[in-house]
Protein backbone atom coordinates (compact mmCIF):
# COMPACT_ATOMS: atom_id res chain seq x y z
CA UNK A 1 0.00 0.00 0.00
CA UNK A 2 1.35 3.43 -0.92
CA UNK A 3 2.64 5.47 1.99
CA UNK A 4 0.43 8.51 1.35
CA UNK A 5 -2.75 6.65 0.43
CA UNK A 6 -4.58 8.48 3.22
CA UNK A 7 -4.22 11.92 1.61
CA UNK A 8 -6.63 11.35 -1.33
CA UNK A 9 -8.83 9.30 1.03
CA UNK A 10 -9.10 12.19 3.47
CA UNK A 11 -9.50 14.74 0.65
CA UNK A 12 -12.29 12.63 -0.90
CA UNK A 13 -13.96 12.34 2.50
CA UNK A 14 -13.81 16.12 2.99
CA UNK A 15 -15.38 16.63 -0.48
CA UNK A 16 -18.21 14.27 0.46
CA UNK A 17 -18.72 16.25 3.68
CA UNK A 18 -18.79 19.53 1.73
CA UNK A 19 -21.30 18.04 -0.74
CA UNK A 20 -23.61 16.92 2.08
CA UNK A 21 -23.32 20.35 3.75
CA UNK A 22 -24.16 22.14 0.48
CA UNK A 23 -27.26 20.05 -0.07
CA UNK A 24 -28.43 20.78 3.48
CA UNK A 25 -27.64 24.50 3.65
CA UNK A 26 -29.12 25.35 0.24
CA UNK A 27 -31.86 22.76 -0.29
CA UNK A 28 -32.54 21.54 3.26
CA UNK A 29 -32.00 17.94 2.19
CA UNK A 30 -30.00 15.07 3.62
CA UNK A 31 -27.45 13.54 1.22
CA UNK A 32 -28.48 9.93 1.70
CA UNK A 33 -27.68 8.11 -1.52
CA UNK A 34 -30.04 5.15 -0.99
CA UNK A 35 -32.96 7.52 -0.29
CA UNK A 36 -32.06 9.80 -3.20
CA UNK A 37 -31.78 6.87 -5.63
CA UNK A 38 -34.96 5.19 -4.42
CA UNK A 39 -36.83 8.51 -4.66
CA UNK A 40 -35.48 9.12 -8.16
CA UNK A 41 -37.03 5.93 -9.53
CA UNK A 42 -40.50 7.32 -9.97
CA UNK A 43 -42.30 6.81 -6.68
CA UNK A 44 -41.55 10.23 -5.20
CA UNK A 45 -43.24 13.42 -6.32
CA UNK A 46 -39.99 15.38 -6.11
CA UNK A 47 -37.85 13.09 -8.17
CA UNK A 48 -36.25 15.75 -10.39
CA UNK A 49 -33.60 17.01 -7.96
CA UNK A 50 -32.80 13.40 -7.01
CA UNK A 51 -32.24 12.44 -10.65
CA UNK A 52 -29.96 15.45 -11.11
CA UNK A 53 -28.01 14.49 -8.01
CA UNK A 54 -27.46 10.99 -9.42
CA UNK A 55 -26.45 12.46 -12.80
CA UNK A 56 -24.02 14.72 -10.92
CA UNK A 57 -22.54 11.72 -9.11
CA UNK A 58 -21.83 9.97 -12.39
CA UNK A 59 -20.35 13.17 -13.88
CA UNK A 60 -18.12 13.49 -10.80
CA UNK A 61 -17.00 9.91 -11.34
CA UNK A 62 -16.21 10.57 -15.00
CA UNK A 63 -14.30 13.73 -14.04
CA UNK A 64 -12.24 11.71 -11.56
CA UNK A 65 -11.61 8.56 -13.59
CA UNK A 66 -10.90 10.19 -16.95
CA UNK A 67 -9.46 13.49 -15.72
CA UNK A 68 -7.81 13.39 -12.34
CA UNK A 69 -6.91 9.74 -11.84
CA UNK A 70 -3.19 9.00 -12.11
CA UNK A 71 -3.94 5.38 -13.03
CA UNK A 72 -7.24 3.65 -13.90
CA UNK A 73 -9.22 2.36 -10.93
CA UNK A 74 -8.63 -1.39 -10.66
CA UNK A 75 -11.63 -3.63 -11.30
CA UNK A 76 -11.02 -6.89 -9.49
CA UNK A 77 -12.87 -9.90 -10.84
CA UNK A 78 -16.08 -10.92 -9.15
CA UNK A 79 -18.71 -13.51 -9.88
CA UNK A 80 -22.16 -12.47 -11.04
CA UNK A 81 -23.94 -13.86 -7.95
CA UNK A 82 -22.15 -11.68 -5.39
CA UNK A 83 -23.27 -8.66 -7.43
CA UNK A 84 -26.87 -9.87 -7.80
CA UNK A 85 -27.32 -11.00 -4.19
CA UNK A 86 -25.28 -8.12 -2.74
CA UNK A 87 -27.11 -5.50 -4.80
CA UNK A 88 -30.52 -6.89 -3.87
CA UNK A 89 -29.74 -6.98 -0.13
CA UNK A 90 -28.25 -3.48 -0.23
CA UNK A 91 -31.35 -2.17 -2.03
CA UNK A 92 -33.90 -3.89 0.22
CA UNK A 93 -31.92 -3.36 3.45
CA UNK A 94 -31.27 0.35 2.95
CA UNK A 95 -34.98 1.02 2.35
CA UNK A 96 -36.08 -1.06 5.35
CA UNK A 97 -33.45 0.63 7.54
CA UNK A 98 -33.93 4.12 6.03
CA UNK A 99 -30.37 4.72 4.95
CA UNK A 100 -26.88 3.63 4.01
CA UNK A 101 -23.29 4.72 4.58
CA UNK A 102 -24.08 8.28 3.51
CA UNK A 103 -27.48 8.91 5.13
CA UNK A 104 -26.75 7.19 8.44
CA UNK A 105 -22.95 7.46 8.28
CA UNK A 106 -21.92 10.82 6.82
CA UNK A 107 -25.11 12.76 7.63
CA UNK A 108 -26.57 10.85 10.60
CA UNK A 109 -23.33 10.78 12.55
CA UNK A 110 -22.86 14.47 11.64
CA UNK A 111 -26.24 15.22 13.23
CA UNK A 112 -25.18 13.16 16.28
CA UNK A 113 -28.23 10.92 15.74
CA UNK A 114 -28.25 7.91 18.07
CA UNK A 115 -30.56 6.08 15.65
CA UNK A 116 -28.01 6.49 12.87
CA UNK A 117 -25.17 5.41 15.17
CA UNK A 118 -27.09 2.19 15.90
CA UNK A 119 -27.53 1.62 12.15
CA UNK A 120 -23.83 2.28 11.41
CA UNK A 121 -22.65 -0.09 14.16
CA UNK A 122 -25.09 -2.73 12.87
CA UNK A 123 -24.18 -2.58 9.19
CA UNK A 124 -20.44 -2.37 9.85
CA UNK A 125 -20.70 -5.43 12.10
CA UNK A 126 -22.70 -7.57 9.67
CA UNK A 127 -20.47 -6.45 6.77
CA UNK A 128 -17.31 -7.42 8.67
CA UNK A 129 -18.77 -10.78 9.69
CA UNK A 130 -19.86 -11.39 6.07
CA UNK A 131 -16.37 -10.66 4.73
CA UNK A 132 -14.88 -12.88 7.43
CA UNK A 133 -17.15 -15.73 6.36
CA UNK A 134 -16.67 -15.29 2.59
CA UNK A 135 -12.88 -14.77 2.77
CA UNK A 136 -11.74 -16.88 5.69
CA UNK A 137 -14.38 -19.57 6.22
CA UNK A 138 -15.64 -20.24 2.69
CA UNK A 139 -12.39 -18.82 1.17
CA UNK A 140 -14.21 -17.43 -1.84
CA UNK A 141 -11.48 -14.80 -2.33
Amino acid at each position, binding site marked *: *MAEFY*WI*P*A*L*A*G*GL*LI*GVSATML*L*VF*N*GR*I*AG*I*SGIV*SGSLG*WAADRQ*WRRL*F*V*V*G*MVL*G*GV*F*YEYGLAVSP*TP*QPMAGVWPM*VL*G*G*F*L*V*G*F*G*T*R*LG*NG*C*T*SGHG*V*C*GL*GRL*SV*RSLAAVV*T*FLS*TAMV*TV*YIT*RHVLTLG
Partner: protein
Amino acid sequence: MNQTFIALLSGLLFGLGLGLSQMIDRQRVLGFLDVTGTWDPTLLFVLGGAVAVTAVAFRFVLRLPHPIFAKTFRLPTKPDIDAPLLAGAALFGIGWGISGYCPGPGIVALVLVSWQPLVFVAALVVGMATYQGYQSATRASK
Protein backbone atom coordinates in the same frame (compact mmCIF):
# COMPACT_ATOMS: atom_id res chain seq x y z
CA MET B 1 -33.79 26.43 -10.73
CA ASN B 2 -31.32 27.21 -7.95
CA GLN B 3 -32.21 24.00 -6.15
CA THR B 4 -31.70 21.83 -9.23
CA PHE B 5 -28.29 23.42 -9.83
CA ILE B 6 -27.29 22.71 -6.22
CA ALA B 7 -28.49 19.09 -6.54
CA LEU B 8 -26.35 18.60 -9.65
CA LEU B 9 -23.28 20.31 -8.16
CA SER B 10 -23.61 18.53 -4.85
CA GLY B 11 -23.94 15.18 -6.63
CA LEU B 12 -20.87 16.02 -8.69
CA LEU B 13 -18.76 16.74 -5.60
CA PHE B 14 -20.06 13.57 -3.97
CA GLY B 15 -19.10 11.43 -6.98
CA LEU B 16 -15.72 13.14 -7.26
CA GLY B 17 -15.10 12.47 -3.56
CA LEU B 18 -15.97 8.79 -3.92
CA GLY B 19 -13.62 8.50 -6.90
CA LEU B 20 -10.73 10.40 -5.33
CA SER B 21 -10.99 8.41 -2.11
CA GLN B 22 -10.90 5.12 -4.07
CA MET B 23 -14.21 3.95 -2.66
CA ILE B 24 -15.18 2.91 -6.20
CA ASP B 25 -12.49 0.22 -5.88
CA ARG B 26 -14.29 -2.72 -4.25
CA GLN B 27 -11.01 -4.17 -3.09
CA ARG B 28 -10.37 -1.12 -0.87
CA VAL B 29 -13.75 -1.43 0.77
CA LEU B 30 -13.51 -5.19 1.24
CA GLY B 31 -9.99 -4.66 2.61
CA PHE B 32 -11.42 -2.34 5.26
CA LEU B 33 -14.16 -4.82 6.16
CA ASP B 34 -11.63 -7.67 6.34
CA VAL B 35 -10.51 -6.99 9.92
CA THR B 36 -8.77 -10.35 10.35
CA GLY B 37 -6.87 -10.10 7.03
CA THR B 38 -4.49 -7.38 5.76
CA TRP B 39 -6.63 -4.50 6.99
CA ASP B 40 -6.95 -1.46 4.71
CA PRO B 41 -7.80 1.69 6.72
CA THR B 42 -8.73 3.84 3.67
CA LEU B 43 -12.47 3.86 4.39
CA LEU B 44 -11.83 5.14 7.90
CA PHE B 45 -10.14 8.27 6.51
CA VAL B 46 -12.98 8.81 4.05
CA LEU B 47 -15.78 8.46 6.60
CA GLY B 48 -13.71 10.35 9.20
CA GLY B 49 -13.08 13.24 6.80
CA ALA B 50 -16.72 13.43 5.75
CA VAL B 51 -18.10 13.26 9.30
CA ALA B 52 -15.53 15.83 10.51
CA VAL B 53 -17.07 18.29 8.02
CA THR B 54 -20.73 17.45 8.66
CA ALA B 55 -20.38 17.29 12.48
CA VAL B 56 -19.06 20.85 12.55
CA ALA B 57 -20.98 22.38 9.62
CA PHE B 58 -24.42 20.86 10.37
CA ARG B 59 -24.40 22.49 13.84
CA PHE B 60 -24.28 25.92 12.22
CA VAL B 61 -26.49 25.08 9.25
CA LEU B 62 -29.32 23.73 11.39
CA ARG B 63 -29.41 26.97 13.40
CA LEU B 64 -30.56 28.83 10.28
CA PRO B 65 -34.29 29.63 10.22
CA HIS B 66 -34.59 27.84 6.85
CA PRO B 67 -32.34 26.60 4.00
CA ILE B 68 -31.14 29.27 1.58
CA PHE B 69 -33.22 28.04 -1.42
CA ALA B 70 -35.97 26.06 0.35
CA LYS B 71 -38.71 26.76 2.89
CA THR B 72 -37.84 24.06 5.42
CA PHE B 73 -35.19 21.55 6.40
CA ARG B 74 -36.37 18.02 5.56
CA LEU B 75 -34.77 15.90 8.26
CA PRO B 76 -35.51 12.34 9.37
CA THR B 77 -38.05 12.50 12.19
CA LYS B 78 -37.98 8.96 13.65
CA PRO B 79 -36.15 9.16 16.98
CA ASP B 80 -36.30 5.54 18.17
CA ILE B 81 -34.12 2.54 17.39
CA ASP B 82 -36.68 0.01 16.12
CA ALA B 83 -36.63 -3.47 14.59
CA PRO B 84 -36.90 -2.36 10.92
CA LEU B 85 -33.89 -0.04 11.39
CA LEU B 86 -31.72 -2.81 12.80
CA ALA B 87 -32.96 -5.52 10.43
CA GLY B 88 -32.53 -3.22 7.43
CA ALA B 89 -29.04 -2.14 8.50
CA ALA B 90 -28.08 -5.80 9.11
CA LEU B 91 -29.26 -6.86 5.63
CA PHE B 92 -27.54 -3.89 4.04
CA GLY B 93 -24.28 -4.83 5.79
CA ILE B 94 -24.49 -8.41 4.52
CA GLY B 95 -25.05 -7.18 0.95
CA TRP B 96 -22.20 -4.68 1.33
CA GLY B 97 -19.87 -7.42 2.55
CA ILE B 98 -20.85 -9.74 -0.30
CA SER B 99 -20.50 -7.18 -3.11
CA GLY B 100 -18.02 -4.64 -1.76
CA TYR B 101 -20.36 -1.86 -2.90
CA CYS B 102 -22.71 0.41 -0.98
CA PRO B 103 -25.15 2.51 -3.07
CA GLY B 104 -22.93 5.57 -3.73
CA PRO B 105 -19.75 3.78 -4.85
CA GLY B 106 -21.81 1.23 -6.82
CA ILE B 107 -23.38 4.01 -8.89
CA VAL B 108 -20.17 6.00 -9.38
CA ALA B 109 -18.32 2.79 -10.36
CA LEU B 110 -20.64 2.61 -13.41
CA VAL B 111 -18.14 4.98 -15.06
CA LEU B 112 -15.53 2.19 -15.00
CA VAL B 113 -17.48 0.56 -17.85
CA SER B 114 -17.43 -2.92 -16.43
CA TRP B 115 -20.31 -5.34 -15.91
CA GLN B 116 -19.94 -5.74 -12.12
CA PRO B 117 -21.27 -2.31 -11.06
CA LEU B 118 -23.95 -2.55 -13.76
CA VAL B 119 -25.28 -5.83 -12.36
CA PHE B 120 -24.96 -4.45 -8.81
CA VAL B 121 -26.98 -1.31 -9.58
CA ALA B 122 -29.66 -3.31 -11.45
CA ALA B 123 -30.02 -5.65 -8.45
CA LEU B 124 -30.02 -2.62 -6.12
CA VAL B 125 -32.99 -1.14 -7.98
CA VAL B 126 -34.80 -4.50 -7.89
CA GLY B 127 -34.16 -4.70 -4.12
CA MET B 128 -35.58 -1.20 -3.61
CA ALA B 129 -38.62 -1.99 -5.76
CA THR B 130 -39.17 -5.21 -3.82
CA TYR B 131 -39.18 -3.26 -0.56
CA GLN B 132 -41.65 -0.81 -2.07
CA GLY B 133 -43.92 -3.71 -3.02
CA TYR B 134 -43.50 -5.37 0.38
CA GLN B 135 -44.38 -2.10 2.11
CA SER B 136 -47.56 -1.50 0.06
CA ALA B 137 -48.58 -5.14 0.67
CA THR B 138 -48.19 -4.84 4.46
CA ARG B 139 -49.99 -1.48 4.46
CA ALA B 140 -52.90 -2.95 2.50
CA SER B 141 -53.25 -5.87 4.90
CA LYS B 142 -53.50 -3.58 7.98
